[in-house]
């Protein structure tokens, strides 16, 4: 095998310019996969991080049917106190759960006594919400941004667009008017204690109040809530934790219906960004396909040329007694070496570019979000590029190598 590798390597160096050109083409393709994969994955994880840490959590649990009507923020599809206790018991005993936050989400009219507009409100326990969505308090740009107390009784955090649109400042009084689940209307006065950046785009109007205030406003006398947001210890275990929780929740059934009472969703099912993330993944796949095509065509081309140029030489080694399998191995090894070292070069170039981008810390705005692009070296892409290039190189070399091994020595020797 050592001799085969030596001969194959020297044959590659024999046509230096052609080998370098082909290797450069493959290396550029591999580098493109690494860079695109790194940037794409960095963008995805950055946005997902902002979404899940600021608002969504990794997983949410609702009463069955809630998500289907989530645009209306229905109060009549709520998790009863008894159900909440069961869920809390499940979550408390699950070592993969870092934190969870019970919430009441509802729509309300907000008035500054001059103007009125509508607003989405999330009522939370601030300390629980901060543990679940650690970036939320950091997004409060004015006012109290203490994670433990960013909303207290009688205070409200309003989004920047409401503050600007209604000319509201810290300490101003506003009135929230909301309809409870029985249809009756109630109003309460709140003091603006914070103004937060909005993460969901300019159309979003999301404010935060204390959950006890929401219960008063909505006249909820028992411990009903509308959702539980969950934060995991390890985001990469999302699928398995989700599956486990779903399985456990299916066991909690309604007394009358004998059907599961709750539904569970990952962030992907709750955010439109999941579609963008899928498109990014698709684009990475397309770049991978381009790489595969480049490698396939380049190696096939160079190996076919190699075989045609060396017909006489193939005749010589065959007549000396080299077995067809060894002739096949010689050409296969040549293609594999070309692919392997090109992939290594491409990986190195790609990683250097990633490190440069990462050091440069590129910032840009996506919707209302400030994204800081700091791509990490995508280990999966690096391994993928190396493995796929080697596999495709082997496949592309097979046909020319077979052709060489099947040559009749007497005919090959006649070739000039």
């Amino acid at each position, binding site marked *: 095998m050592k*001799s085969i590798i030596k001969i194959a390597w020297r044959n590659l160096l024999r046509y230096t310019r052609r080998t370098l050109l082909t290797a450069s083409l493959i290396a550029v393709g591999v580098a493109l996969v690494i860079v695109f994969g790194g940037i794409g994955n960095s963008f995805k994880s950055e946005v997902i991080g902002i979404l899940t840490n600021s608002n969504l959590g990794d997983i949410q649990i609702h009463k069955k049917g809630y998500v289907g009507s989530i645009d209306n923020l229905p109060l009549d599809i709520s998790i009863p106190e008894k159900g909440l206790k069961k869920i809390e018991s499940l979550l408390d005993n699950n070592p993969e759960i870092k934190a969870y936050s019970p919430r009441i989400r509802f729509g309300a009219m907000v008035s500054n006594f001059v103007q009125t507009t509508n607003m989405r409100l999330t009522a939370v326990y601030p300390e629980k919400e901060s543990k679940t969505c650690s970036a939320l308090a950091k997004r409060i740009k004015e006012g109290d941004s203490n994670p433990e107390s960013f909303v207290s009784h009688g205070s409200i955090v309003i989004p920047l667009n409401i503050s600007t649109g209604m000319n509201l400042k810290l300490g101003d009084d506003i009135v929230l008017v909301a309809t409870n689940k029985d249809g009756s209307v109630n109003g309460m006065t709140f003091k603006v204690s914070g103004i937060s950046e909005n993460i969901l785009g300019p159309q979003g109007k999301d404010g935060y109040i204390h959950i006890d205030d929401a219960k008063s406003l909505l006249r909820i006398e028992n411990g009903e809530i509308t959702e539980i947001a969950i934060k995991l210890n390890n985001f990469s275990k999302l699928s398995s934790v989700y599956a486990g929780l779903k399985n456990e929740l299916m066991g909690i059934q309604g007394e009358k219906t004998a059907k599961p009472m709750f539904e569970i969703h990952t962030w992907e099912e709750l955010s439109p960004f999941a579609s963008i993330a899928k498109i990014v993944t698709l684009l990475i796949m397309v770049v991978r396909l381009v790489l595969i095509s480049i490698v396939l065509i380049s190696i096939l081309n160079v190996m076919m040329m190699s075989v045609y140029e060396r017909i006489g*030489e193939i005749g*010589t*080694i*065959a007549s*000396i*007694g080299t077995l067809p399998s060894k002739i096949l191995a010689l050409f296969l090894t040549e293609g594999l070496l070309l692919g392997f070292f090109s992939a290594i070069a491409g990986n190195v170039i790609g990683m250097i570019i990633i490190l440069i981008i990462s050091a440069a810390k590129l910032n840009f705005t996506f919707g209302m979000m400030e994204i800081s692009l700091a791509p990490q070296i995508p280990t999966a892409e690096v391994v993928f590029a190396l493995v796929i290039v080697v596999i495709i190189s082997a496949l592309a070399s097979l046909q020319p190598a077979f052709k060489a091994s099947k040559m*009749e*020595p*007497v005919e090959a020797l006649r070739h000039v």
Partner: protein
Amino acid sequence: MELVVLDNVKKSYVNGEVLTPALKGISISISSGKFISFVGPSGSGKTTLLNLIGCLDKPTEGKVFVTGTEINRMDRKTSAKFRGDNIGFIFQNFNLIPVLTVYENIEYPLIMVQNVPPEKRKQKINDLLEKVGMTDQKNKYPAQLSGGQKQRVAVARALVAEPKLVLADEPTANLDHVTAYKVIGLMHGMKKDFNTTFIFATHDQKIVGEAEIIYTMEDGLITKKQENTISGEVSR
């Protein structure tokens, strides 16, 4: 036992719809340790005959035996192995592997064809390098050698696996007069040292003059067999 036996061997080539006979029925026997030359004009069938004896081609009719083995029934793999074990080749254009040094070219059959252990390999190659006078050039590549040097390396490569038979097709055609005599002398010496049979296809009178048996071929047939009693000394 005869080393090579050809029994009414015929070979025809099909070119489109035209059948061209190259050999029209050759029957000869060649014993071990001989220096044999096939002579004749171009197209007389010399190379075709060498290809058949060398297990590179198959006859249309008849049988070819080398070392007692009927070689025309072998498949590709078996014939490759048979060639590697029993036959050495010397070509008109030397046919050295350009990416290998002199040493590595001679080593090639021992590594890629036979599986000779490194120590034995080294000893054999160094002996042969000395015999062909190429020890000083062993690290050079074929492109750095003269025609005569290349052919000396080719002779060493053909003999390194200790074949019973060496086939040489016009081995001196690309060499000048002096170099050609040196190469013939070298092959003569090798024949004595290794008791190897050399079969040439040539119209070079220098080789013809050194052959022990000269077969003259014309139009696919052997028309004359001549035994040369003064062979064995390379005259200059």
